């Protein structure tokens, strides 16, 4: 097969249809690698991606087991990731995040990978703690912990007194 042939398959722009189901461990592995590489590209090295894994797994579980299911979309992504690896080697992540794949319309298998997987994984990476690399203490959709904890789950104003006038 010509390298990248599957990636260039023409697909409808909408989400690929599939019945709800479960990804195998082998299918999860390259998707997890993609997620971790997002942290490599934008993180500051302080966040161990393993601390995000349960959050990511719950996301994958909900997205594949309920309708509309992303099962076919993720299986398609596994194919494209494999082809990108053969084409670009370690440069594949740069190509995917910053290169020409980034702007590809979701009318090919590669475009679907960008739209339905990479872009959504970026949001999941941020909401599962990745945002901290940019200096914030909390972020929309981050489950930051009880407000009654000793340490507040967001950054506080420097000057807060009980009465103000």
């Amino acid at each position, binding site marked *: 097969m010509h390298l990248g042939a599957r990636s260039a398959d023409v697909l409808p722009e909408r989400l690929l249809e599939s019945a709800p189901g479960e990804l195998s461990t082998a299918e999860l592995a390259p998707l997890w690698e993609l997620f971790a590489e997002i942290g490599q590209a934008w993180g500051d090295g302080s966040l161990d991606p393993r601390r995000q894994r349960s959050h990511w797994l719950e996301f994958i579980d*909900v*997205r594949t087991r309920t309708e509309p299911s992303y099962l076919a979309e993720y299986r398609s992504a596994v194919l494209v990731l494999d082809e990108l690896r053969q084409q670009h080697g370690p440069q594949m992540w740069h190509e995917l995040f910053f290169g020409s794949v980034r702007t590809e319309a979701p009318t090919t298998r590669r475009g679907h990978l960008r739209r339905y997987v990479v872009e959504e994984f970026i949001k999941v990476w941020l909401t599962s703690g990745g945002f901290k690399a940019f200096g*914030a203490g909390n972020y929309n959709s981050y*489950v930051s912990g009880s407000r009654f904890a000793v340490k507040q789950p967001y950054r*506080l104003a420097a000057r807060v007194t*009980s009465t*103000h*006038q």
Partner: protein
Amino acid sequence: MEWQTVIIGSGVAAAAVASKLLDRDPGHALLLLEAGPRVPSKDRRLWWDFVLSGRSAYDHCHDLPLPGDGNTETENESTGSTPWTFRESRMMGVGGSTYHWGGWALRFKDEDFKLFSRTGRGADWPISYDDLEPYYCQAEALLGVSGEDPHRWNRRSREYPLPAFKQTAADGPMIQAFEQLGIAYASMPVARFRKCMTTGTCKYCPLGARFVAAYLLDALVESRRHPNLALQPRRVAAELVFDRKDRVIGARVLNTSTGESRSVFAERFVICAGSYESAKLLLRSRNSHWQNGAGNDAGLVGRHIISHPFLYVQGRSRDNPQRLQQELDFPTLMSRQFDTSREQAGGKLFLFRDRSKPRIDLAGRMIAGRSRQEIDAELTGPTLWELQGFMEEFANPNNRIELGQGLNRLGLPQTRIHFARAEGFEQTSAERLRVMQEVIRAMGLEVGESGVQPQRGDHAASTCRMARDRQDGVVDEHLRVHGIGNLHVCSNAVFPSGAAVNPTLTVTALALRLGEHLAS
């Protein structure tokens, strides 16, 4: 009779009245009719969909959005000189607008109940702050309000049930400006239960940590203590049926799932359908007894509609070395310094820091292929800040809600609103904006864009206002429609005036008071 009480609507007012009736008599035969559908709550898939797309699980329960950028609604009409925006201003479904509300829970103040006596404008309430104070306490407990009142802006017999959210780092620069200008401030009182994890997706909370009336109604319905309680979604009350002028015996109800129409009969009806639908149901209920609509012999039903003009002032800082971002989905800084009797005659002003600024869309930047260094530069570079405010509005009988043509997609009759801002509004709002601009300058910022946003209907009120005399209002001090012994209205519609703050806590207090009155 089939039912002892039928409540039309399922928002916070309906839930509060229902809970009081069932508290007193768990076997009370009570039916709640909701025009809209049920929306699944605390659903992980719907939450993830919201996180990723920004589309809420209840978008289909809003009035349709504006086509293009004009002010012509597809489901409603705005006919006055000031366009009225319906978009996302209410939620038509089980739980009502508490499904999408921000949870801001503020009490009105003493003087708000005496508006006409004090200013010669608007109308007085036939009840006082002190009449409502015990119910404000109950409402704060029911909604789980976190707050503080270090300046005693309200006379309180009980402290807030939960401590205030501490102000965020991004509040810091505005706090310093307030202090420099001698403006008193406090944390915004918000309805967030103890289990809040500051997830920042309050519009669809995955934990159920913000009050939604549907949670309370579901708990009531699921309880075995209430064998005679029913909640029916997708049921539009088309009109009320009378056997004599002073008594309602039934409501003709359209099931929008099946298209079937039937009547339900009850000893008592309570309309808790918001400012639009409460008035519209009365207007639709025309018969030989009430030729202009139920309770409308004085022609006041639907008149006096008000909302809150929304003022804003922006300022841009040259840099943001601390990378301050708005880290919560609700404001934690507000001021009632200009929400006092001194400002009442010109229109009170309630100030708060914008809940969405400063914020850089990190995901959008990453998806656009920006590098970490580029995003860092943007985070520490020029930053936009905004101070916002609600201004009190004075009722005008010419501002009114009427029946529109046809039905909307949920099967509810359409809405027409005729509205014009009061004479002199431009001048008074400009004065208020100058106060806000001072704050922005005190932050060391150059004043940017400022003005009054297009009028929105989120806090619409006064369409069935409360008055002792039937010549002055639609319902009496117990929210009973003048001239009809067994018909009550409980929503923002009954407010004689709207003060400068959000209405939900006040309507909840009124509903608890009404529920207690009906149960006794």
